[in-house]
């Protein structure tokens, strides 16, 4: 079943993310993505600066798994973790990292912690989320 991000997920993801990519030794390399180029049903395109990309470049070239969560107040209000495979395209000073989403997990403390959400249908996911949260990030 394909992933279809909810509207709330799309809004929060656009506020910025922390990306974890690991190297062959299993060492985490974490960078920040302050700018998100686009979010579609199952894909997020991060627009990274060269220095943001430098932290994950080597590890990503060997293993394309990317896990990410939300920075700022979203780390409290938006309790999810996303995982997928990343592909990079450099254009001028910007590095576009496209992550094709494969897994979504709830990270809300309590009984839902670790619940895998990408196995729900888009309708089920939307309904499940609405029962727990309805807030969206404040517009900047």
């Amino acid at each position, binding site marked *: 079943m394909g992933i279809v991000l909810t509207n709330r997920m799309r809004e929060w993801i656009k506020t*910025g993310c*922390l*990306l*974890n*990519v*690991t*190297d*062959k*030794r*299993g*060492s*985490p390399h*974490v*960078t*920040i993505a*302050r700018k998100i180029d686009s979010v579609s049903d199952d894909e997020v395109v991060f627009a990274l*600066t060269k*220095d*943001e990309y*430098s*932290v994950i470049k080597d590890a990503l070239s060997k*293993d394309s*798994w*990317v*896990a*990410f*969560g*939300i*920075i*700022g*107040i*979203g*780390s*409290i*209000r938006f*309790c999810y*973790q996303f*995982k997928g495979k990343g592909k990079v395209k450099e254009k001028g000073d910007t590095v576009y990292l496209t992550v094709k989403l494969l897994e979504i*997990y709830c*990270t*809300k*403390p*309590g009984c839902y*912690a*670790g619940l895998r959400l990408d196995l729900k249908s888009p309708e089920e996911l939307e309904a499940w989320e609405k029962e*727990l*949260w309805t807030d969206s990030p404040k517009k900047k």
Partner: protein
Amino acid sequence: MVKLTPEMKEALIVPGKGGSVIYLATSSIDGKPNIAAMRYIATMKDDKALVADMFLLKTKRNLKENPECSIIIGHPIDSGRDWVFKGKAVDIEYGFPPEFDWYGITAKEVLDEWGDWHHKQPPDEVPPDVVYSHPAQRGVVVLHIEEVYSIEKGKVGEKIL
């Protein structure tokens, strides 16, 4: 050897006491990354960060096969606390021998001080729709910090310590 600055120690406490929400980043032995936000954070000595093991699943499994771990300040961001703390971590669970030693810190020291974290620092600042009804602490993750780097705008990846 890394020595955390006073500012870093102030950042690595629970949000309700002026600290931060942190992310714990780990990896399975075959390289699948994981990153999850946490509230209960503290430091011990000059080079250890502590996180409560309350609802850890993949993080816990990852640390059992691979100690490589990072702690990242997730909130507030762009406030002079844009740091990644990198090192080796263990989840000191109840049942560890008291004398178990992780880079100069014992299981007894850790569990005596932080083994009942919910009562020591209750989550009063956590919004009602996020707070959990019944915490069940199973241990304390101890990160021995070996390196600190920046995720500050324009300085991402720069080594600080």
